[in-house]
């Protein structure tokens, strides 16, 4: 089963800071972007609910099933939102998604701690950030496909 995770980091003003599409859904960026924009309302509701209930969980869980996808959310204390769009045929347990989001959050914190990044940047273009998100997606959102290739001799 092919999983097609897609990641999006939304900034404080709800603008997308980072957007990444994997595998066969590479040609549908605009459509997938729309899905994410639709889900931002749900994210806001979840965050408000979390605020009033005093919850301590950054992971928001399943936001909505839309069409053939399921959207999962995660919101930090600094109003950064992460949204993952996953094929509905792929079954991910909560633990895997949580680990994925925590790794993405970690990548973002590392990115921000770099004093050379601009605080008011509208896009995250750092290759290391992209690599970390890819690694997180590979580790937690894909089923093990084939045995890892043997290490190349140095």
């Amino acid at each position, binding site marked *: 089963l092919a999983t097609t995770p897609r990641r999006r980091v939304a900034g*404080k*003003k709800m603008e997308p800071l980072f957007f990444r599409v994997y595998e066969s859904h590479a040609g549908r960026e605009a459509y997938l972007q729309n899905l994410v924009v639709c889900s931002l309302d749900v994210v806001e509701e979840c*965050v408000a609910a*979390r*605020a009033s209930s005093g*919850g*301590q*969980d*950054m992971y928001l869980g399943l936001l909505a099933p839309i069409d053939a996808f399921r959207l999962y959310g995660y919101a*930090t*204390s*600094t*109003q950064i939102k992460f949204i993952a769009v996953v094929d509905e045929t792929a079954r991910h347990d909560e633990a895997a998604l949580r680990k994925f989001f925590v790794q993405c*959050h*970690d990548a*973002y*914190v590392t990115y*921000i*701690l770099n*004093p050379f990044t601009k*605080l*008011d940047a509208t896009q995250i273009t750092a290759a290391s950030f992209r690599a970390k998100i890819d690694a997180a997606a590979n580790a937690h959102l894909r089923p093990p496909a084939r045995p890892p290739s043997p290490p190349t001799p140095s």
Partner: protein
Amino acid sequence: MISEATFDLLLAEAIHSRGLSGSDEAELQGFEVGFRLMERASQTRVLVADDHLEAIKFLCKDMWIGIFGKQIDKLQTNHRGVFVLKDYAFRWLTRHSCADEALSRARTQGLLQFSCGLLRGALANLGSQAIVTAELSLAYPACSFNIQIHTLPCNITN
């Protein structure tokens, strides 16, 4: 492990030698540092966006311990968006001593502006726009920070 004494001296010298006292640059640099540090500090803790008191309390405890190794000694508020944070032994001032009090106040302006910017940046990342000023009215090296939160909703981060 980092030598804290070395870092304190380096920071003071960096601000002083760049001639930043009296200009806005020290405050802006502090803003960047505080903003970034808050991202790390709040990584494992959920903080609500408009709860200014919780944000300030988080600043007084967790962040102050992280940066200065101790908590804020006294926190006062008028519950209308004004907070006064008093540190009776502000870490970055404890190494400055000068017979002439007026002179020592003048020399530490840059450091205090940097600290104000640090607090402003940390709060800004949590969604609280604030004006931060510092006062040396208490016995040196005590210092008090006056934080005034804007209650108007606004989206600027700088």
